[in-house]
């Protein structure tokens, strides 16, 4: 499997909000399964989209993959090497290849460093270059991300959102990344600038053969850039498959609900229908009690339509991710 760049097997990341030295005395375990048994792989030059609502564990997956936070269990295999338990020094050569574009533009760039210093820092961490080479490399990077040279002397707060985003991308390229976790790269940008950034990311993929894990809650953008898409709900992947099929012929009720909620698809009629439909089914999320059967059941339209079948709510059972079609997996007893 030479062309698989990243493989994730049964990855789990549990947070323990009541942790601490006295937690043993408190008795009951109160674990939040932010990422629960997630497996997928990404091939070279491929983009995988990861969608889901706020708090479903998208960003946690990204951070765990890059070992920014340790995994609770499971395996992360990068380029054929198991990196899950590598020490910081052993991981260093891999860090060069795996990078992240962070969601928060302003928090990701040091406000007291000029753009040139930010890029220079990224270059010196992983390689030794003399000044002339450094300048050449920096202008190369600027050209790659279409940033004006005059911006080098500016501070991050003097740049617009799109420019900051491009500096962030340039920084990941500076170290020679081949796999990039793009965490909501367009969420803070206007449509016009969003289009620029998306075009740039796709150009870079073509030129440099990058692979992306593209995390976003903008469904249209995900569908546009991704080859395949995984839909997450409460820490689990509920559906995974080719982008076009997930968007146009979803099989999991959650995916269907998610895609039908795109604002522009709404005609006045559907707004009216919604008024008549039952209100309670979109209750608040409950991460602390997810184990009772299918996690989506309380909000699931199919569950309600089928007259609440017992199997969905059975606390002892939970649906598994099953292959129902060629390269299309769904975690549901009653796929659409």
């Amino acid at each position, binding site marked *: 499997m030479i062309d698989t760049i990243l493989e994730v097997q049964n990855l789990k990341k549990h947070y323990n909000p009541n942790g601490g030295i006295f937690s043993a005395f408190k008795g009951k375990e109160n674990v939040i399964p932010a990422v629960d048994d997630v497996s997928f792989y990404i091939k070279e030059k491929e983009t995988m989209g990861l969608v889901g609502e706020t708090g479903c564990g998208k960003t946690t997956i990204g951070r765990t993959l890059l070992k920014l936070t340790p995994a609770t269990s499971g395996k992360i295999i990068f380029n054929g090497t198991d990196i899950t338990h590598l020490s910081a020094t052993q991981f260093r050569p891999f860090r060069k290849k795996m990078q992240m574009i962070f969601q928060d533009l302003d928090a990701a760039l040091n406000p007291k460093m000029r753009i040139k210093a930010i890029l220079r820092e990224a270059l010196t961490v992983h390689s030794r270059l003399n000044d002339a080479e450094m300048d050449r490399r920096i202008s190369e990077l600027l050209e790659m991300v279409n940033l004006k040279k005059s911006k080098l002397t500016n501070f991050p707060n003097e740049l617009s959102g799109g420019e900051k985003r491009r500096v962030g991308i340039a920084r990941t390229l500076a170290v020679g990344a081949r796999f990039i976790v793009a965490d909501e790269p367009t969420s803070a940008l206007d449509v016009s600038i969003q*289009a*620029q950034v998306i075009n740039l990311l796709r150009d870079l993929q073509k030129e440099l053969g990058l692979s992306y894990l593209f995390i976003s809650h903008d469904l249209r953008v995900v*569908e*546009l850039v991704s080859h395949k898409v995984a839909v997450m709900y409460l820490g689990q992947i509920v559906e995974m498959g080719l982008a076009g099929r997930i*968007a146009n012929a979803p099989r999991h009720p959650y995916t269907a609900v998610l895609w039908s*909620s795109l604002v522009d698809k709404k005609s006045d009629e559907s707004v009216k229908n919604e008024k008549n439909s039952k209100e309670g089914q979109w209750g*608040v999320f409950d991460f602390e009690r997810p184990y009772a059967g299918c996690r989506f059941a309380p909000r699931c339209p199919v569950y309600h339509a089928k007259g609440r079948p017992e199997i969905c709510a059975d606390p002892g059972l939970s649906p598994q991710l099953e292959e129902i079609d060629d390269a299309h997996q769904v975690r549901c007893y009653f796929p659409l």
Partner: protein
Amino acid sequence: MMDDPVLKIENLRTYFYSRSKQAFSRAVDGVNLVLEKGKTLGIVGESGSGKSVTALSVMGLVTAEPGVISGNIGLKNNGIQKNLLQDIEDYVKITNDNGRIAEVSKDNPGWQRHIDRILRGVRGKEISMIFQNPKVSMNPFSSVGQQIKEAIMLNTPINNPQEARQRTLYWLEKVKIDSPRLRYDNNPYGLSGGMCQRAMIAMALSSEPSVLIADEPTTGLDATIQSKIVSLLGELKSSVGVTTLLISHDIDVIKVLSDRVAVMYGGRVLESGPSTEVLAAAHHENHPYTAALLASIPTAQQIRAKSYLQAIKGDVLDTINLPTGCRFYARCRQVTEQIKKQCKYQEPELKEISTNHHVRCWRYFDA
């Protein structure tokens, strides 16, 4: 026809002084807007185009110097006409240099006192506002119900706490918060983002304002929650019928909710008209900027074909170094050789190209 304007903004200018650049940032530069009774006016534009500053200027919430320096904001309620920027000339001294504003001096403390006096009965009462980030806009130490009750007791004739509580529950129900009696005692952090936004909307509407300003009410919410809030606003529009100024950079939201649209860029309105006409993709008679904005939204065909998006080249206008000509000139793709000179050196006026549809572009002027 503009027969019944509730809020009329004329020639509003709001500037900020940038100390490091020793120059004025012209955030809002001569904006004219009209809100008709019971209608929704949407403002779209990229970030930095002056949408939010316009809203803040109306509410008198711009505190940076020099802030609002000229204009008229007429508010008409129950037949009483008020100018929210009355006597602003007394506090601002503007020095012109070749027709451009070179220097502004403003007595800011005096102005602040003056505008607070004018707006005392207006802010939160006649004009209320929904802010972008609901969690930050609410007091974290007090329950949601308490906060709405407080607003009701302040801004409506109701001054009996029991009655105010009933009224609060009525509004919480109206914005479809499930089990309002339970939520009444929740603090803002106990609510999800969408719920919190609903509570904000309830608070804004509870004073039964004549104008509601919604500043990016759906930004930062998930797609599913976003569409819920949009349909809620749509419903409230028909049931409560409040005049709304809706600000968003999400064109889809504006398209669904507003009757008229103003497209802003670099502190100016470049186009205004009925939303069906301005934001229709097939409609060709609009400003190049609007056309470019619409084209940069991924369409269904583009997604299916995985084709490139049509980005607008370059970045949002720097409001400090404004060009002498059309503000969109540097990024415009529809400049022809014929009008190039005009575009570059002379700014066009708004021109009516069809009923109530104005465009600020040289393409619509005869050479």
